[in-house]
């Protein structure tokens, strides 16, 4: 389970970098740094982009509003959301 979580977090960092077109390496993103408006300087459009990619890749739909704000607090929060709502 822990291994799963670590793998998922690594994959999510790749996803964020890819979807938001950031020029950083995955290990430069920490697990608990703020994603939107944090050191990566992501905005609400990045948030929408990440949510759509997560839905497509993991089948987890993140509703705009409070749920999205919570899920996109950090890589930790995003992986928790996916593990909690993942189908199957």
């Amino acid at each position, binding site marked *: 389970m822990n291994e799963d979580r670590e793998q998922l977090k690594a994959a999510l960092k790749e996803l964020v970098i890819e979807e938001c077109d950031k020029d950083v390496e995955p290990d430069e993103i920490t697990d608990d740094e703020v994603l939107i408006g944090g050191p990566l300087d992501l*905005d*609400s*459009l990045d948030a*929408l982009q990440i949510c*759509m990619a997560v839905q497509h890749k993991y089948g987890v739909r993140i509703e*705009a509003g409070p749920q999205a704000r919570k899920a996109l607090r950090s890589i930790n929060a995003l992986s928790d959301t996916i593990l909690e709502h993942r189908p199957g």
Partner: protein
Amino acid sequence: MREAWFIGADTHTVLGRSLADNIAALSTPPAPQQIELRFGGQTIVIPYLILADQPLEDIERRLYQVLYAVIGQALDEAAKSGMTAAQRRRMGLFLGTSSADVSVSEARFLRELETSPDATALIGSNSISNLARHLRHHFGLGGPDYSFNTACTASANALMSAVDMVSSGDLDHALVVGVELCNVITATGFQGLGLFASQTMQPFDQDRNGLILGEGCSALVISASAPKAEGQLGRFHLRGSANLCDTYSMSAANPDGSTVAAVMNQALARAGLEASQLGAIKTHGTASLHNDESEMAGMRQVFDTLPPVCALKPYIGHTLGACGLNELLLFCGAAQAGFLPGTPGIASPERADLGVSLNQSRLPLAPGHFMLNFFGFGGNNTSLILSNTE
């Protein structure tokens, strides 16, 4: 600078097939239809304000049928106002649209994909300018054509350039066209941005929850010569205008209102008017919190006391690139008929959460000066001052 007269106009929206029908229907906003869109093995149902009496059928021809009727009517009125056939052949075409003929190329691509998985997208038409060329050939217009593609300000910007070319003497006549019809890219794109309301748009209202897409097509003929007889738009003319870029965000104006105030102030200055001289404001009013906040903050910076404020998107939906001309014709047509449209129950004094309420019912409106505002994705802000008095 010469006067630029509005000598022919027509519009087709959910409210009706003519400008007169549209004006008559400005009393209760219509409910959107739920329409089905099919693409790539998916079907989605979304709310849409579809053109009156123009079912979503025969999509590869529908756009042209709509445009031919609206432009034909505007040109007929212009001919009755005194525009000759020779003048028509030299008139310039100013097209403002977001999706142009995308509905047509989508339908063609879908049809071709049914028989061949190797079908190539964007084969039939792949330039916004192709629609302008099609219209020039259909109506025998030999003058220049310019297609403006600046998101939700496109047809407002087309009008600005058309009026400038007529009043500066470069052209004697101009045809301004705004068009936006239902298409899959626009619908799914806005849905992906999470911007759809579930029912009528409620800008500036505590219960705002986004926009409803609308279909619309409008045409306006502008002339350097005064019409023989007063037409549908009376003595209305563009007295001043401004367009400025706002680099705050791709998808929203600066919420502090500074960029919205700047474009309004520049339009007023170009019109030679003070804010206190305006008789009414037509808001952009997309009913997203971002837009409403920026727009309201901007208005407060420019106006000590606000004149009556109205919104037209509850009636026709957000017609995107065409909203500039659609809403201008609706506003001027209503003002010419002596009233400011109201939106009953939307942003009433009890429900407006940003401190400014919308006009609630038809309000008598004397000839005067009016401000119409439009803000688009990609940071494009336009403010127009229309007058039907000196």
